[in-house]
């Protein structure tokens, strides 16, 4: 089972990890694990479980290009992020790190703390016996997820997704 974490609209990367908690500012990169939503949702880092799902309003991840925002979420083991619209740089960074992002608005359909079953391969959520089908992302994105991120993808294929030759 996966716990649902509900967030509102326009969650910016300063809320996900404030610039003051960047790896650049820390003694050790691994400390980043303590800081996702450190101010916006102080209980998050200590209680989040691997596989948990973030369900947010539109424009998730707006603001800075800091990859340590999605990296902190990956360190926390987030299973997927579901929002009707993602900020562009965040979406790329999450894809590059192999964090699945689905474009759908489920903030009204689910509630914070709800336990659901999540099937990444089929893009399906089962909540209170009801199955929710998430819109399937383009094939090339699924290939990047399957590889575990853009770096393993690039090393496997020797090229960017969609590049010929």
């Amino acid at each position: 089972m996966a716990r649902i974490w509900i967030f509102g609209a326009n969650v910016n990367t300063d809320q996900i990890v404030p610039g003051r908690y960047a790896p650049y500012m820390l003694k050790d990169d691994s400390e980043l694990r303590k800081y996702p939503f450190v101010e916006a949702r102080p209980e998050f880092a200590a209680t989040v479980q691997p596989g948990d799902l973030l369900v947010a309003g539109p424009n998730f991840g707006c603001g800075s290009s800091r990859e340590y925002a999605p990296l902190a979420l990956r360190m926390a083991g987030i299973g997927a992020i579901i929002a009707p619209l993602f900020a562009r740089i965040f979406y790329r960074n999450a894809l590059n790190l192999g964090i699945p992002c689905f474009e759908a608005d489920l903030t009204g359909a689910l509630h914070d703390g709800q336990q659901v079953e999540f099937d990444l391969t089929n893009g399906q959520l089962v909540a209170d016996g009801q199955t929710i089908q998430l819109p399937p992302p383009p094939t090339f994105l699924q290939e990047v997820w399957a590889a575990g991120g853009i770096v393993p993808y690039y090393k496997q294929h020797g090229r960017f997704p969609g590049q010929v030759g």
Partner: protein
Amino acid sequence: MAQTLAEQILSHAAGRPVQAGENVVVDIDLAMMHDSISPSIIKILHGELGAERVWDPERIAVVVDHVAPAATIQTAEHQFKLRRWVREQGITHLYDVGRGISHPVLVEEGMARPGMLIIGSDSHSTGYGAVGAFGTGMGSTDMALALASGQTWLRVPETVRVQARGSFRPGVSAKDLGLSAARKITADGATYQSVEWHGVDFLPVSDRMTLATLSIEVGGKAGIVPPTGAGWEAHAARRGLTVPEWLRVEDGAQYSRTVEIDLDQLGPQISVPHYVDNVVDLRDLDRIAVDVVYIGTCTNGHYNDMAAAARILKGRHVASGVRLLVVPASSEALRQASADGTLEILLAAGAALGTPGCGACIGRHMGVLAPDEVCLFTGNRNFRGRMGSPQANIYLGSPEVAAATALTGYITHPEDVVG
């Protein structure tokens, strides 16, 4: 088929005609990396990708601006290692502590030029659009891949056209146009899109950077001002730059949306905590007392911004209980302000001067805010906790409003203090 400026630049970078909606692999003209993110880029480049050398040491600019000078032993050590890496890789374009913020610096150096595709480890890399370049921000992994390959992949964006008409009233400037556009487009209205700024031929390049940097605040992948008009010509003449013949605003280019802004009717705009698009007319704002007025950043820390503030502050002193911090965007801006007396006016008015760089914009040093403090900021983000305490309140406004506010201690229309 007629193309937008973004389509023209990405067609050139892809080596074939491309249009909005296509995914393309493109050659990069210039990659910018700064001190804050470089450690992770270098780690991915060598550790994960296994690349030993960067693709082209001449096409990489390394700028120490985010914590400059170093505030902690940790940041000092990162910068020490970064300088060593720069030497090892043979990178010649290192702009170290005090030179200023990456975006204005690369424009001043003539490294950022019209028609270029520039990627940077900073979301405000849209700022290179001030000189008609396609600048876009990327994360550490994309940057590392680009340093290894000289390429990146992206989707060719649709374009939102901002069409300004008329001219600014006294006390109104590019920041007000940018915030007015943010108000109309909203924080995600240009997500995955480019923003083209029209009707601003009269603006100098630094004011164009105000608009180009604010483009990310509406979700823009790039923010491009056509390299035409008196403002561009002055910059081009000084730096010996030309516009590639293939880069021209074309009649019939397709825009997803056009946003019209009548400058003759535009008054000072204020972005209210904690979202950039939460913009109101200053005249509609209640009396907001401030603790700090902060003039700086890649958006509004340029020479012209300091000069605009100085015109209002000349012969006067900031209000009792207000701190006025000035952090120039670059050493060149600071030298210019020093040479013509602008700096003297600011200092005589009570300003405290910081080292050119990002300053407190990311809340790490040089004037971070305490809980419950209120700041009138000429920067680009008023997110909760951006400049320090999450209990602080940040209002965004123009340099003219900043100066007027410093004089009275509350957010003030410039015309109310100009005698």
